[in-house]
């Protein structure tokens, strides 16, 4: 039998994104409620001064949280429903499954991304260069968060563990990191804490590209370097330690 590789990838997207949103439309609203709520709060508190940077934060949050939240889907399929066992014992490769689940996390974010991009077009001044920069950074952040999600999902034995990891990472990535406001608003020495989160480096690059943060070329280069290295290393560990067949 000739196998359709595209189908094998698309299957995961259908199950965990398309059917999820089609059968439970409320999930679409829920997916962008959290980042948009923070945009509203930041806008009120800053009297509109930080609305642009807050919209950028909402975009980062959407990509990062959807990447991490994929961990709960993988954990559900693996530990709760045992569907991953059925997939392992099928012609689908681990790579097709990972790709499918990654696209799925992107697919569930699409309604939210569209809404945020509409806000972006109104509140954020964008050039071609800054748009390309933002695209590159969110792509790296998405790969980073999905890799972390995969790495942890393969190590969880039940869904409750996944929820704990998701809460901790969500807090670390979207609260410690100054993604809804410039890092300069954090007083010293607490500012250094923000650099514990890899998302901070991506946020600095985006805010710099869109004119909300002024940093030196050296610091910008360090931000890119840290973000790229962290993403590559995390992706490497996620693939290397992926438990497709149990030992």
């Amino acid at each position, binding site marked *: *039998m000739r196998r359709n590789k595209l189908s094998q990838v698309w299957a995961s997207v*259908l199950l965990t994104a398309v*059917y999820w949103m089609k059968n439970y439309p409320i999930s679409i609203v829920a997916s962008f409620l959290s980042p948009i709520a923070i945009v509203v709060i930041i806008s009120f508190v800053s009297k509109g001064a930080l609305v642009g940077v807050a919209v950028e934060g909402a975009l980062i949050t959407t990509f990062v949280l959807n990447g991490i939240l994929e961990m709960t889907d993988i954990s559900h399929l693996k530990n*709760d429903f045992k569907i991953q066992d*059925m997939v392992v014992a099928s*012609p*689908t490769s681990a790579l097709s*499954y990972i790709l499918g689940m990654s696209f799925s996390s992107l697919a569930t974010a699409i309604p939210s991304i569209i809404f945020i991009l509409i806000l972006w077009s109104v509140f954020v001044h964008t050039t071609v260069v800054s748009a390309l920069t933002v695209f590159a950074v969110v792509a790296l952040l998405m790969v980073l968060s999905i890799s972390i999600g995969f790495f942890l999902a393969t190590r969880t034995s039940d869904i409750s563990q996944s929820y704990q990891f998701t809460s901790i990472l969500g807090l670390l990535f979207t609260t410690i990191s100054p993604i809804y406001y410039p890092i300069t608003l954090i007083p010293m020495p607490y500012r250094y804490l923000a650099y514990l989160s890899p998302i901070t480096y991506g946020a600095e690059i985006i805010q710099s590209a869109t004119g909300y943060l002024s940093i030196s070329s050296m610091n910008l280069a360090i931000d890119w370097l840290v973000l790229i290295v962290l993403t590559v290393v995390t992706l490497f560990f996620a693939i290397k330690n992926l438990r497709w067949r*149990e030992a």
Partner: protein
Amino acid sequence: MPIECVKLTKRYPGSASKSLDNVNVSIPTKGIFSLIGRNGAGKTTLTRILGTQLMPSSGHASINGLDVVDDAKELREIIAVIPQDGRPVPWVTPAQMIMTYLMWRGYGIREAKARSVSVIKDIGIYKEKDKHISKLSGGTRRKVLVGCVLASEAEIVFMDEPTTGLDLISRTSFWDTLGKLKKDRFFLLTTHYLEEAESLADGIGILDKGKLLVSGSMDQIRKRIRYRYMVTLGKDVKVPDFKGKIIRTSNSARIMTSEEGAERIASEMIRRHAEFSMSPISLNEIFYSFVKEDIEAGDGDDYEEE
């Protein structure tokens, strides 16, 4: 070609004991083979190793000449599994679940859709095809997973306790379906329902504490037992002298004995006008005999050594 296991052993990381201990078996890949054993006997471990989901610690296993470790990719083209405690995801419909599984197997979306509708009719859940799985009964949910593998082209299907939790009618319907399909496919399944395994499986294996105690057809297994007849005595009947084994329950005493022994006990019971029944031993007694639990020795060994 059969399923071949040679010195197959599994010790889970950090575990002191072996979940599978030196299992050697050859199972023809035709019809239905049922693996029975107590909880923790190693049934799931063996099924998962054969289903390429779990690595063995040592030894080899192959299916139709394909090694479960070295040729896993090729093997996954022809096998399918339903795991123990496997459940379809609740947010989709049966048709969507089956279609997704078929797409994972590499079917195009149109063929997957057509096959899913067809199998849904075959397994008798057409009325529920568009309902959310979260609203279906446990039996129907189980059928959805069965539908997934039956709709596929897999020639060899592993099912780990597929009927656990199903009511009698659903179980009967499930076995009927397997009975019809076994001409074209091979099913290896684990179960705790020994009567069903006895009447429907073409081959049976008994596992206990990681060891395969016996394997073969019912006739072959029965021949390994020294005492092939069962005399069941009523609760208050005094047990006569016998040569064999006895299994006591709160309501009866069941004596496993030879044909001559059974005739002798029957004569004695008739003379006493006592309540009794006599029959060839069933898989239940064979199972008891092999796992040697709750059995008092009368005289002699439980089974013949090969």
